[in-house]
């Protein structure tokens, strides 16, 4: 077993190339200001720059390096992908916020060739920003119960309804949207997966005020006419089609690197000697060690999934387990931060807060970590199904 990331000569040569390109292209001009901590604070100029950067990266084939060039990818190997991920992570850039990128999974598996050229390729090349529309006010983790309705009208559909908790900032080019296509059909066989332009008449959106400010919206559909060309997979196959994206969103892909750099940075700050008091009565060492262990575990689980995903090994419970570990880490670490730092952990003040407001954000983020892409409890329900514990038999959906 090899935990160490060892690199081949070819990887190191590639790394030089990637680094040189990033040095020339991945540095946001200082005049655009500081990259904000939270998405909603991204300025329009920063967002424009971020989109351009994303597009440049995509046209280099490096946004989705292992996708085939036919669909805008780099046609590269896992070795290249790892180097690109490590190197791009070294640059702090604003997010162009395209959460609908998870559509890549279902477009690849279910879309027609024509749809792949029209939707998958521009997405892989970073030319379009896509929002992911699942959740509704009455349908959170029970996604199959959504109500937004697409009524057939000749070769088109007329869509009415609303979505909420839709991640993104400013605007999208396309909306990746799950709707009801057969209101009389049985659960799981009554939905359609659409990928349509965001500027169709009748579509509007507004910001949703949440505890954190990453950027989420209500999206409203008022008699929106959508051509059949934007339907992916069968008319009532939407549930099955969307599972591929859900699988992607739900931790299957995993990741490299430190899951929660906040704790690492806090420990580094500790060692350097700090200005403010810490652990006013709490046993600082044990709190910090617990946070360190939790973060380490979350990173290892993510790394395992990264390896399994990229070596095309079959995952069963590992995706939701990875999701759950991420949530558990954020929730428990916020508790440690409160024990360690007391009111210092609740302020974003530049003098008395810590790590440029990241600790205060972690406190707010803990309340949001319980949900989003499912929930803390749903992750466990899915794990149970995947290890054979429930009446519902289930296997992971295809993603590539």
């Amino acid at each position, binding site marked *: 077993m090899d935990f160490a990331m060892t690199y081949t000569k070819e990887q190191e040569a590639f790394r030089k190339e990637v680094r040189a390109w990033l040095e020339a292209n991945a540095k946001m001009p200082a005049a655009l200001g500081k990259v904000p901590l939270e998405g909603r604070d991204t300025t329009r100029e920063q967002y424009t720059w971020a989109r351009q950067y994303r597009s440049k990266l995509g046209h280099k084939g490096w946004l989705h390096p292992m996708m085939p060039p036919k669909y805008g990818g780099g046609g590269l190997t896992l070795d290249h992908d790892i180097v690109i991920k490590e190197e791009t992570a070294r640059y702090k850039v604003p997010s162009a916020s395209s959460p609908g990128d998870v559509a890549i999974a279902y477009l690849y598996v279910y879309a027609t060739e024509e749809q792949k050229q029209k939707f998958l390729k521009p997405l892989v090349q970073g030319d379009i920003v896509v929002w992911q529309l699942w*959740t509704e006010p*009455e*349908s*959170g*983790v*029970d996604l199959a*119960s959504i109500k937004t309705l697409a009524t057939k009208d000749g070769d088109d559909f007329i869509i009415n309804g609303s979505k*909420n*908790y839709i991640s993104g900032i400013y605007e999208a080019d396309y909306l990746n949207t799950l709707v009801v296509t057969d209101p009389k059909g049985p659960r799981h066989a009554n939905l359609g997966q659409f990928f349509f332009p965001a500027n169709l008449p009748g579509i509007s959106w507004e910001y*949703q*005020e*949440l*505890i*954190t400010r990453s950027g989420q919206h209500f999206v409203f559909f008022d008699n929106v006419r959508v051509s059949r060309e934007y339907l992916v997979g069968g008319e009532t196959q939407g549930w099955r089609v969307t599972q591929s994206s859900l699988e992607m969103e739900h931790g299957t892909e995993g990741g490299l690197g430190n899951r929660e750099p906040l704790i690492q940075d806090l420990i580094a700050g500790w060692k350097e000697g700090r*200005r*403010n*008091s810490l652990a*006013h*009565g*709490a*046993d600082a060492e044990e709190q910090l060690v617990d946070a360190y262990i939790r973060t380490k575990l979350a990173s290892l689980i993510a790394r395992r999934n990264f390896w399994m995903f990229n070596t095309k090994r079959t995952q069963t419970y590992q995706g939701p387990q990875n999701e759950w570990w991420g949530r558990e880490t954020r*929730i428990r670490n916020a*508790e440690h931060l*409160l*024990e360690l730092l*007391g*009111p*210092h*952990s*609740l*302020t*974003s*003040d530049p*003098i*008395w*807060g810590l790590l440029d407001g990241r600790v*205060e954000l972690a*406190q*707010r983020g*803990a*309340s*949001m970590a*319980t*949900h*989003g892409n499912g*929930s*803390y*409890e749903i992750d*466990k329900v899915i794990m149970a199904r995947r290890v054979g514990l429930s009446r519902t038999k289930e296997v992971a959906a295809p993603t590539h």
Partner: protein
Amino acid sequence: MDFSLTSTQVMIKDSARDFLSRECPLRTVIKALDDSETGFSPDLWRQMVEMGWVGMSLPTEYGGVGSSFMDVATLFEELGYACVTVPLLSSVMLAGRTILEAGSSQQKAELLPSIGNGSRILAFALTEPDYGWSPEFVGLQARSEKGGYVLNGTKLFVPDVQIADEVLVVARTSKGDSPEKGITLFRVDKNAPGLSHRILAGWAADKMNEVVFKDVRVPASAVVGPVDGAWAPLQRALDGATAILCSYMVGSMQKLFEMTNEYSQNRIHFGVPIGTFQRVQDYVIDILNNTDSARWTNYEALTKLDEGMADASLAVSTAKAVASQGFPRSAMDAHHVHAGTGGDTRYGMYLYTKKAKTYHSYLGDAAYHKKRIAHALDLSKQVPAGRGSARP
């Protein structure tokens, strides 16, 4: 043995519940106050004064009602239930009662009536950047000079300074052989030259201030209580205020329980109310258990304070340790059940979450109060000293 509320307490509870549910709805009034710059409504304060709530706990000779701790607690439970923010704890229960414990007859006569009728608002400044509620954390220096004192240092995370007329400052006039020795209390006008204050941004429930003292000169008459010897009366006031804060926390937890229980019964997913699922039930029941633990340790502390019992301090620390742990847990459990709805600021539940995280530490966190409990139980004599420390 009688665990029922007195008729006075029932009246306080009912009238407070009635008034606050009408005048202070969570999603409009309370949220707007939280979003506002000062977090203070002069109208609301005036109404509370008129209802006799502000001066309740002060003795009748100073214009108060002489209410018991339990009576005051009944009001504070309702304030917590409604998530109301008012300077009542700072001005009356902390500053006012410290003056009651430590002040001269002249100071009490001069200050307490106006504190009790709400026309004078005091902030209470003890904590500093090196945060803690015991005397070793008091470092702000008060140097004796020309018949008065000069104050230098920083107080941090002090509520209500932004609306106060004066600040009651816990300072250090000397260093003795134990941290309690050398503590002196000062009344300082908020606009005194050399005193600057600002509200700190972030997710604290109340507006928390940084208060900087740069050569702030005060006359000798600004001293409240004995020079170098103020800790003992201060601790008595702190104990009472801590028990009252716990009552607020109990009220908030009660509301979290009701909110979460109701949500679980009305939110339909997978064709049934989510409260049908055991995992959801677990959270609701955990909130209930944490609420009742906090409630009953709090009631015992309040009773012991009212009866003047010697182990009242132990009971107060027990109540605060329980509430400091239980309130943040309950808030997180409520978030688990509410999921997306709880993250939406329009729903308003996050206002209780902020209270939970703030009051976790205010007037001492669980770790601090557990040390007080250990000391009160004389555990250093009962429990062997720790061995096998990892340190070299």
